[in-house]
């Protein structure tokens, strides 16, 4: 290196300050510049659940995002299990996936992450400061981000329980309610609880599920209905059932629409789980960018407050007060003692075992 070259590398104090200022400004303006640099698509498609779920996402996140960016958000109500193979096939075949953002259960999202079809979200600016619940467990980075927790409660028709809410999940076996109890058609939300109410313990999960299967065998005699979210609301509305294990959102939505439904967390506890958002691989760069920005927007305080308050679920943004009707409700856990009454099975265990549990559940109820 000659003197001239060396002289060229010598920075004066003034040069250093000027360069630093430019760099700092660049870093500060980078997100804004990126916003400006990325061509906006006319719309982004977000897969969502229908009914009160979709309404909450629209009012809480989609409308605000559209207002802030000018990008229209279209909600796609394809069943979560049905969109999954469509996205997988698109990614595998190098096609553009049918949606930009998938609002998914954490278990399903984890399965998609394991398959390698999710975009890493680690660079989202709003991840900082969220509750630890936001981070997917057992996965590197953020192939998905959890957005809130929810509880599979014991929902019941108050008319059928004049002496107060049921205290134990054993009420499902009461012959008085034969043909008038309901579970999810894949056992989701109740599998871990069945083990405990069947005489086992949390430690038995997943190696010894037999107490749960034994409970299911007894429950079969009571002829339960098996369905999806929308079915529970319809069944309560049409007076077909008195009792169901369903997500508190469905029970609350039914109650808000005038149906005689309440919910409780029985002494054996309830399963708590999370939902999340993720972006499929294979989108054009600008669309992927805005899809990620949608998720980033969903993690802001305002969006989390509005979205989760409408759902009646605890968000991952800290310090947000529960809706007035859910203050002190264990199905909206906020305190450590609330969580003690709830059971959370890690996603990894759910992903590895759910197919086996489903097979057994089917064997018992279809057999």
């Amino acid at each position, binding site marked *: 290196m000659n003197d001239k070259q060396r002289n060229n590398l010598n920075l004066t104090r003034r040069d250093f300050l000027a360069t630093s200022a430019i760099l700092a400004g660049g870093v500060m303006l980078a997100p804004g510049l990126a916003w400006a640099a990325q061509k906006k698509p006319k719309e982004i498609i977000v897969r969502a659940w229908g009914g009160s779920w979709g309404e909450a996402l629209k009012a809480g996140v989609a409308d605000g995002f559209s207002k802030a960016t000018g990008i229209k958000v279209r909600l796609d109500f394809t*069943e979560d*299990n*049905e969109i*999954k*193979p469509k996205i997988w096939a698109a990614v595998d075949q190098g096609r553009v996936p049918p949606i930009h953002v998938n609002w998914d259960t954490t278990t399903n999202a984890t*399965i*998609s992450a*394991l*398959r*390698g079809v999710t975009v890493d979200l680690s660079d989202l600016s709003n991840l900082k400061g969220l509750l630890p619940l936001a981070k997917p467990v057992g996965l590197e980075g953020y192939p998905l981000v959890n957005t809130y927790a929810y509880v599979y409660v014991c929902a019941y028709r108050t008319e059928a329980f004049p002496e107060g809410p049921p205290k134990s999940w054993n009420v499902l076996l009461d012959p008085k309610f034969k*043909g008038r109890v309901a579970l999810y*058609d*894949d056992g989701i939300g109740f599998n871990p609880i069945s083990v405990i109410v069947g005489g086992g313990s949390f430690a038995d999960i997943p190696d010894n599920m037999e107490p749960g299967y034994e409970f299911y065998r007894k429950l079969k005699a009571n*002829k*339960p*209905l*098996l*369905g999806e979210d929308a079915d529970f609301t319809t069944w309560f509305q*049409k*007076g*077909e059932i008195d009792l169901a294990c369903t997500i508190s959102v469905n029970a609350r939505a039914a109650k808000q629409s005038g149906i005689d439904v309440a919910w409780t967390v029985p002494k054996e506890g309830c399963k708590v789980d999370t939902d999340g958002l993720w972006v499929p691989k294979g989108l054009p760069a600008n669309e992927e960018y805005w899809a990620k920005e949608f998720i980033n927007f969903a993690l802001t305080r305002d969006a989390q407050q509005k979205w989760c308050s409408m759902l009646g679920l605890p968000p991952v943004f800290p310090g947000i007060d529960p809706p007035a009707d859910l203050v002190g409700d264990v199905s909206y856990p906020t305190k450590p003692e609330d969580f003690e009454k709830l059971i959370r099975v890690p996603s990894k265990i759910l*992903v*590895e075992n759910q*197919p086996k549990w*489903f*097979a057994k559940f*089917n*064997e018992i*109820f*279809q*057999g």
Partner: protein
Amino acid sequence: MSGFNDRVGTPLASAKQSSQFPVRWRILDAAERIAALIWPRSLYPYTGYLLLVPALLLVFVLVIGLVYIGGYSLHELDLSNYRLKESFSLTNYYTAFTSATYRTVLLRSIYASLLVTVITIFLAFPYAYLMVRARRAMTRKFLLISLFLPFFIGQIVRAYGWLIILGKEGLLNNIIGFFGFSPLKLIYNYPAVILGLVQYMLPFGVLLLAPAITAISRDVELASESLGAHWCRTFIHIVLPLAKPGLVGSSVVIFTLTLTDFAMPEILGGGTTDFIANSIYDGFFQLSNSGLGAALSMILVTLGTAFVVVIFSIAGTGTLGFSKGAE
């Protein structure tokens, strides 16, 4: 029409003369020349086969899909990444045949298919007979419209119609309640699924029976009766045997449609009376196990095909086409 007789001549004269033809003629001539290039006159005898090409292509695509499904069925799911393993295995078929669930579901589907076929044919036959033989045009039209009306209402809507009628707060239970009885559990069980399927299949049954009954000459029945046969004997010994092509055709269609049905068990079954199509759906979508879903699909296709082959070999193809009986 000037010019037609002057077509033979020097090229220059011919060109000059043809330019005097109306534009429409010249366009048609050009179109004919292009058509002759694409499909020469020597190939004219095969024109009929050409019309088959689109249908054959569709079937070919279907077969390709089936080959792929057959291929998937030979790969086990890897739960660590939810992809099918590279190695070939019969694990999915082993699961399908050894699982008590799939055995029950398969037997339930077959039993329902037989039951629905028998009940539907039993109900469709008198309907079709009356529709064909009714003397008054008004009666025939009424029966025909009543038959076609459900076709305009999809299967899902019809299933929900049953929920409204048979539900706990439905029409029937309201009537029962009016007379002071407790409501009955009429939906979300196996009989409800069978009922929904029979109603769905009835138009298919009637429409496939009607041509066969139309082909039976009224004179044959009159001859039988004039020889002293009671209507019952005429029905058993004349009408029924002559209607065999229709019975075969409608039985095959009803059986296979029922065997592969998804919506009725899903909506009216309450989640505990799945058919094999529901299990296939679960395999592909709920379990994300395309290998297992594909294996169940292959079993269903094999089962349906075997049934059709057995029926066709015993009774011919009936109104569906090319049997000796139809000749």
